[in-house]
């Protein structure tokens, strides 16, 4: 079964490809949806095409699947109407699958399930990465506010943090917001730290 992954996020495509290979599929190709991707796809004659549901290039792909004379068998979107949970999971995960006419449902379903799991894993990874980035920048802001307090009010690092924390609690704000306000004020007053 030849599987083509159309994706312009290199990482997500790799995550999906690895999963498919681990599951024993070995005829896998990744095509970014740019330039003449439609012509490349036609030459590959895939059995299954997997694509990010959010990709703006889906209209282009569907048109090609509709009019292509190069493809020996027509390809249509794969949806198992008897399986609402699967439809929901695929849409939530952002997976769309196109499958050649005649390919049995039982053969396609594991591929789609795997794609859903991998897309979800990728989304989770992405979220974690974003969270880690945010956490890092928040820590930097708090560190800077602490050092302003330590300098200006001759506090220990621990006391500086305690002060930020109690101010935040009193104002019903997040520590990082209080820290950011302090930095801004300090900058305005020429604190220069």
């Amino acid at each position, binding site marked *: 079964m030849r599987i083509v992954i159309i994706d312009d996020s290199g990482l997500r495509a790799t995550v999906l490809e690895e999963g498919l290979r681990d599951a024993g599929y070995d005829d896998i190709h990744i095509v970014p949806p740019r*330039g003449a991707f439609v012509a490349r796809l036609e030459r590959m004659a895939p059995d299954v095409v997997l694509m990010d549901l*959010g*990709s*703006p*290039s889906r*209209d282009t792909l569907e048109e090609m699947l509709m009019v292509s004379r190069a493809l020996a068998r027509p390809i249509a*979107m794969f949806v198992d109407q008897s399986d609402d949970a699967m439809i929901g999971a695929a*849409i939530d995960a952002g997976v*769309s699958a196109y499958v050649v006419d005649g390919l049995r449902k039982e053969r396609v379903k594991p591929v789609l399930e795997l794609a859903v799991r991998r897309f979800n894993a990728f989304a989770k990874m992405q979220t974690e990465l974003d969270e880690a980035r945010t956490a890092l920048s928040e820590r930097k802001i708090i560190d800077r506010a602490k050092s302003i307090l330590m300098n200006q009010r001759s506090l220990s690092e621990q006391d500086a943090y305690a002060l930020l924390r109690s101010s935040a609690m009193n104002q019903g704000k997040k520590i990082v917001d209080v820290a950011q306000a302090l930095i801004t004020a300090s900058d305005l007053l020429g604190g220069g730290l």
Partner: protein
Amino acid sequence: MTTSLRIAFLPLTDAAVLAVAREQGFAEEEGLSLDLIRSTSWATLRDRLVYGQVHAAQMLAPLAVAVTLGLSQQPAALSAPYKLGVNGNMLVMASDFAAALDPDSGRRLSDPLGTAHDFAAAIGLWRRKPVIGVVHRFSSHSLMLRYWLASAGIDPDRDVVLRVLPPSLTVEAMRAGEIDGFIAGEPWGSAAVEAGLAETVAIGERIWQRGVEKVLAFRTPWLEENPDIVDRLLRALIRGAAWCDDPANHEALAQLLSDPRYVDQPADLIARALTGQIIVRQGEAPVASPDFLLFSREATPFPWRSQALWIYSQFVRWNMVEHGPEALAKASAVFRPDIFRRALADADVPMPGASMKVEGALGLPLAVGSRKGGLTLGPDRFFDGRVFDPERMDDYLANFVSRL
């Protein structure tokens, strides 16, 4: 209690009524909380609607008909009780190509027949078949472009290459030289003009003076099961539409739509379609096109069944569907004037007495029978003077000799 509704849309100026119903509180006053889901392709918007991930969607009218006829992936019965706008499309071509057309901007737009013939000549001068981007096979844009090209003897399936791509990718595709021009909803044509990549060649308003465009589409079973919610939504939208049409609000509307949650393009580009000030070439003075995009006046939101049938007639003309009484009836039933009437029975809007009309027959504004309030229909002629009588479908189709 507030009802939450999920509605999918694409970043386009004619998503305005949905955005305004939410942002100006019209939905809230009807007890609705609108969750507007931005989508980047018509395929994804369609899937979200068909598979029940959203309750409704801003849909290309022809796509709603196509899905119902089973022509676009999973078949599903859709219903469109409300039109989100009339007109609003623009064909732009690379400046090199447009050099062969009438250099006078006003004349170029006001004489679509002349421009179509110039276009045919320009194809001969071009180094290859021009590649024209269309947003979808089943779009008003594609049907209008085909209609317009064919009027000058250009076969849209043979003499040009139509390439499908979503509106938000059109400008980049122009820049990369992947297409020589495109027809899309605003502000994408204006964005290409502003970037110096293209010139305006034709506008929808001059091809069909009152061209059917986007509709609000529901899955038919859901629409039937939730009459109260549907009615409340339509009442919120009709107030949003009146707000959008009011010139006093155009600047605020352009600002609102420029937000990254909606169209995410500069407000001054968006304002061009709203105010009907269309710039043909970068740096030129605008050409006034007061009917460029309509939301409310002349009962714009009313889903005339004859317009669903016109769409069907073009599907038949271009061999997109096999003509038969069953398909015709299905297509006609996609537009739901009955729901529109029910929802807005007590609202302060003029209500057409009929559900069908002869399309393309009005050269001048005409006061027509209305159940309530004064209703004046605007001129609705096709540029070639053809008239579509929905009762005489076969005569109309026979009219297009060998498709062209």
